[in-house]
């Protein structure tokens, strides 16, 4: 009988503490969490409807409506303030908007999981918290990327012609942005005691970030600072310049319509820094939780 016990404990050990078996296990866990995010997103019809209707509203109604006003008149000569139509101008910003909504929405599921218990199922598993976070963020990134692609389908319609090479670069930026935004959502969600509904997020996080990102009106760098100040109050300029999303929008504009308000390198750097810093914060939160 003693032999039986020893055989059993030996078996236990070999199953669970083989050193090489650890890392693949963690990867499977990340995959599981990622897959779950994806499945939930695909099955959530309201999220899909939002992902399709939002770009249509912004492009078809707002874009077409404001298109004629997006120009300046200098000595009777009509010219565009920015050498693009309004539709072209807001198109990259709508990509960012759509991704912003989606990634924050999927990050908010952290709160749902906590409130409705599923998080416990993960917390009693041997999966490290960091792997849970990574799976979650990668899942959100993938879904956000998908919703960004929905907007890209409208590109012909708004006279934006994108070469294959540009698409590649654009997708890379979008993926990085999706990662950063989902992590932002997770960081916010971790700080919430209770879940008040998605409207709060939409009004307090997503829309302010979006409107303050030079997305729907340009701060023309061709104007001097004094000239800009004549058009816009200081606080607005300040907020726009400190909003990281400004540079994300700028990066996508650079890729898709070839227009940059800032140094073309700024955008990718800011997005990358956002991703790294926010993920570090989220990681720290998760380890503590």
């Amino acid at each position: 009988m003693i032999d039986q016990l020893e055989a059993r404990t030996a078996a236990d050990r070999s199953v669970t503490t083989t050193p090489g078996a650890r890392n693949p296990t963690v990867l499977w866990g990340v995959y599981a969490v990622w897959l779950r995010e994806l499945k939930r997103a695909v099955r959530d019809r309201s999220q899909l409807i939002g992902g399709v209707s939002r770009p249509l509203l912004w492009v078809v109604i707002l874009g077409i409506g404001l298109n004629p006003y997006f120009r300046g008149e200098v000595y009777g000569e009509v010219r565009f303030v920015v050498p693009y139509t309004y539709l072209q101008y807001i198109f990259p910003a709508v990509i960012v908007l759509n991704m912003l909504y989606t990634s924050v929405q999927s990050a908010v599921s952290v709160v749902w999981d906590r409130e409705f218990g599923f998080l416990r199922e993960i917390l009693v598993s041997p999966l490290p918290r960091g792997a849970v976070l990574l799976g979650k963020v990668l899942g959100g990134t993938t879904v956000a990327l998908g919703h960004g692609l929905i907007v890209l389908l409208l590109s012909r319609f708004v006279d934006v012609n994108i070469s294959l090479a540009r698409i590649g670069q654009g997708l890379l930026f979008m993926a990085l942005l999706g990662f950063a935004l989902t992590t932002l959502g997770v960081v916010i969600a971790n700080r919430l005691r209770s879940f008040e509904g998605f409207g709060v997020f939409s009004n307090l996080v997503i829309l302010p970030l979006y409107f303050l990102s030079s997305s729907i009106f340009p701060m023309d760098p061709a104007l001097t600072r004094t000239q800009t100040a004549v058009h816009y109050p200081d606080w607005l300029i300040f907020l726009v310049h400190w909003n990281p999303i400004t540079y994300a929008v700028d990066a996508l504009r650079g890729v898709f319509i070839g227009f940059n308000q800032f140094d073309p390198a700024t955008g990718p750097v800011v997005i990358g820094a956002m991703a790294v810093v926010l993920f570090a914060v989220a990681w720290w939160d998760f380890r503590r939780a």
Partner: protein
Amino acid sequence: MSAFIRTITTPRLPSLGVPCSMPLICFVHDRLSAPRPLGEHDTSTATFGPTSGHGRGRPVRGGRSRLTTRTAASVFVDRVSKRYGRTPALVDVSLEVEPGQSLALLGPNGAGKTTLLHILTTILRPDSGMATVAGFDVVKHPREVRRRIGMVFQESTLDDRLSVRENLEFHGLIFGVPRRQRNAAIKELLELVELDNWRDAEVRSLSGGMRRRLEIARALVHQARILFLDEPTVGLDAQSRSLIWEYLRLLRRSREITLVVTTHYIGEVENCDRVCIIDKGRVIANDAPDALRREHGQELLRVTVNSADAFRDITRSHPEAVSIAEDRLAIPFEGSEFIANFVNRYGRAIDAIEIERSSLETVFLKLTGSELRDEKASHTEQMRSIRRRGGELTR
């Protein structure tokens, strides 16, 4: 001993003329107690601890020597205390569950059962004291503990947007169960809890009882040997409740599982080998149901009186009486002449009288001085289910 049992449980047995029912009983006993020879008290601490503890590198790392002498136990709790703010939830709780045993933690809501379970499943840390599960310290090696246990929470922790199969698959993946083993386990468990026809149904469409069964199955996908269930039958109708216990019995018959179950339904603890009564964070008794009945059982006379005067009279002349409500008393007694005398004396003051034979209810009443507050519990259950439903609607 177990060898003997094995031989008589071979299928050829009936031809040897052994009564038909015997193999079955032996079989059950064999499965339930298969590892018990290892844990037979005196020998286990004497021979196992030292040899398997240090020499063979049994997976107790950094444990004190006292700990290693107890590794034969699946669950070992030593003077664990926990408080929430100023409220003590657990006070010096010690207990032990041997491999293959089933333990019921019985107590009213708020007694500390869930807190204890959360400490054992590494969700909470104890303020003081020490606990090991499967030989690992729950504070020092939480991940080793988690690998070896299955947990079924009081509230559903299923993802109701995923299908039955997907929930199980998710669990297998995050526990790192290899694909082939995972598929086999899922198939087997779904058949066991009779959900194989619902494999691809979204969990949203399942009834409460089916969800519970699914959660029990899920907790075992990674071949857990120790299963913790927190109020597994709460909020279910009587039929589903007994079904859940039926599945647990089946499970324990088909594999070697140590079971720790919390419940506040006193009738259910009969399904377990041992009962640990917890009240206000303290362990009050810990024994087999039969032994508890034998030791603490008492016959009770339950009386409903019709006036406060009568209530006072009776409590004065029977100081052993326990008051249950303003007009209700439970009086322990022995011998049938007591009833006759009592009725003679107080017959006019009594609205109703009821004789209760020795049962776990009477044991509980004697040990805690109160009844299990079932009505109150069902009220909170209702609140919980309303909240849960509300949550679903507002999503």
